[in-house]
């Protein structure tokens, strides 16, 4: 990793506390520092209860740190207001969830259009772009189907297309293969690799699977609210 590259996630000494001032005050993150550069594919691993989800919410602008400094693509998150956070989530971050979180009453294509709709893009432009994204994840033949007519792998491909809708600075994937069988999971991981290599997308993968983490460039291990180790991945691709 070279410092000449653009810093996308710049976190220093992040502390997160819940129930502040109450007897059962809880500190989940005790001062986490995290730097992710443009074009990197990194993973954050850790057992449940390690603060993984809290850190992910923080990176994804769903939550704000109690203390510490966080710049996302140069934007000061510590002083952001609620509507700023909405705009950041809309334009800078592409979420991929374990449970897909597609809107059930909308077709796959409309789901992909949704972030563009919130960004205020016109109808025609939206549809053209959404179709292009559906083509990218090889889902164009099923784009007029509703989520419950799609398999798990297909749903996750639609979710990836949706995450890419507004050309985000990073893709934040939270256990994206957690609900899939290994063959389908392999397919999804391949899409991430392709996005990283071909389009230079910055990807942060949150997982509890060390096997998947090894595929990424850098692995950060989180335990009890602290990053306890950081190492390069072996690059060994898990079998499908």
């Amino acid at each position: 990793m070279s410092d000449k590259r653009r810093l996308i996630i710049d976190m220093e000494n992040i502390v997160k506390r819940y129930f502040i001032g109450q007897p059962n005050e809880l500190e989940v993150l005790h001062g986490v520092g995290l730097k992710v550069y443009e074009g990197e594919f990194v993973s954050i691993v850790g057992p449940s209860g390690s603060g993984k989800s809290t850190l992910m919410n923080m990176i994804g602008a769903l939550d704000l740190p109690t203390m510490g400094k966080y710049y996302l693509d140069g934007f000061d998150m510590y002083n952001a207001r609620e509507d700023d956070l909405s705009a950041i989530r809309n334009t800078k971050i592409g979420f991929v969830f374990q449970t897909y979180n597609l809107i059930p009453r909308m077709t796959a294509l409309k789901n992909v259009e949704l972030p563009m709709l919130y960004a205020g893009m016109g109808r025609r432009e939206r549809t053209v772009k959404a179709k292009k994204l559906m083509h990218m994840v090889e889902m164009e033949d099923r784009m007029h189907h509703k989520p419950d007519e799609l398999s798990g792998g297909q749903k996750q491909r639609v979710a990836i297309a949706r995450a890419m809708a507004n050309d985000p600075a990073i893709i934040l994937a939270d256990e994206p293969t957690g609900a899939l069988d290994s063959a389908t999971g392999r397919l999804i991981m391949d899409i991430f690799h392709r996005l990283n290599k071909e389009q230079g997308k910055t990807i942060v993968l949150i997982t509890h699977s060390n096997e998947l983490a090894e595929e990424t460039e850098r692995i950060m291990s989180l335990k009890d609210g602290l990053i306890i180790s950081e190492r390069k991945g072996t690059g060994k691709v898990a079998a499908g």
Partner: protein
Amino acid sequence: MLLGENISMALASILANKMRALLTMLGIIIGIGSVIAIRTVGNSVTETFSESMSSMGATNISVGVTQRETEAVKSEESGLEFRGRRDRKYPEEKDYITDEMIDEFRNEFDKEIDYILLNESIGSGVISVGGNNAYVSMVGGDEGYFKGQNLELVAGREIGDKAQKGGKAVCLISDYAAKKLMGSEDYEAVIGRKLQSVSGRKFYDFTVVGVYKLEDMGMLFGGNEDRETTLYTTLGCAKSHTHVKGYPNFTVSKVTDTSVDSYELRSRIQIFFDRYYHTNREFEVSTSSMESLLDELTKTMDKISLAISIIAGIALLVGGIGVMNIMLVSISERTREIGTRKALGATNGSIRLQFIIEAMVLCLIGGLIGVILGVSGGLFAAKLMEANAHPSISSIIESVAFSMGIGLFFGYYPANKAALMNPIDALTYE
């Protein structure tokens, strides 16, 4: 976010739960439907009534001798009119309005009154010409009466002033009666003929001077039965047969000048006749006009629609609470969706707008169904009452706007609740 997108999203989520949406809308459908129905009926009845009023002369005031009302009867007058007089008495000749009073009346109200309609009914009779019968009811009227009747002659001439003054036994018969008698439509043939009308044991002789065109009353008096039509003669002639002095009632035609208020004129007429009748313990003179009848009808209809509107308002309130309830259920079911939308960049405002629009669309659909049911129900009821159907456009517009207002009012709280959800909690909601 665009309004069109929100509306199509709202429709999609309503269509996803059709039965639930329909049940939710029921209160609104009933509320709006009943208001529209009663307004349509009210509108139709008053319109039809006023149409027939104006054709009958809305500027006319009827003056008549009526029984004095006891205090007990008067108190019943408030609310709907239940004028149940226990011992109904009719005025006798001694109580009638005399010629002297009428002359005095003419002088006093010279400026306000166009003419007075006086008439005297002789009774029913039958006329025969060569075995052909025609049934008539014989009425004598003065010049004013004929002016008010506005008869259209198909043959002959009107009853002239000279004939009136002399109380001549001349008459006008209907084209219907003329055809019956002569067996042809050659109405001229009957002019100048002397006819005798038989009523019981009495005989009345008239010379026909004219034939008038009978207003077609439609099927109302239809059938193959021989119709009884009016035979008009002079007032003097009728009086000479009945030997009755004075009149139990007469009609006044007000000048068609808007400066003369019909209510004020009526009370002045009342005061005028009170001078003659204040000693009469049983009878007095009272007045009525088509205008005031119409006013009373409108007032009654307004009272009924107010009562229905209050009931409908309660239905709408219940309906609105139902909408709020179902929106709260829907938001809790769709918590993950709300979380997802927030993660994808929806602002609190756009989430709030989405659910407010959904509530408004729900209410609007309910309102429109209510309008359709209300209008068709109202028109059907109006048809049954043989009134011309006039749906109330203003109340349709009001109702549609009002139902959307309900959506806005009752949808705001749930929508705001959705908007203020924490995205992390919403995303992990089970």
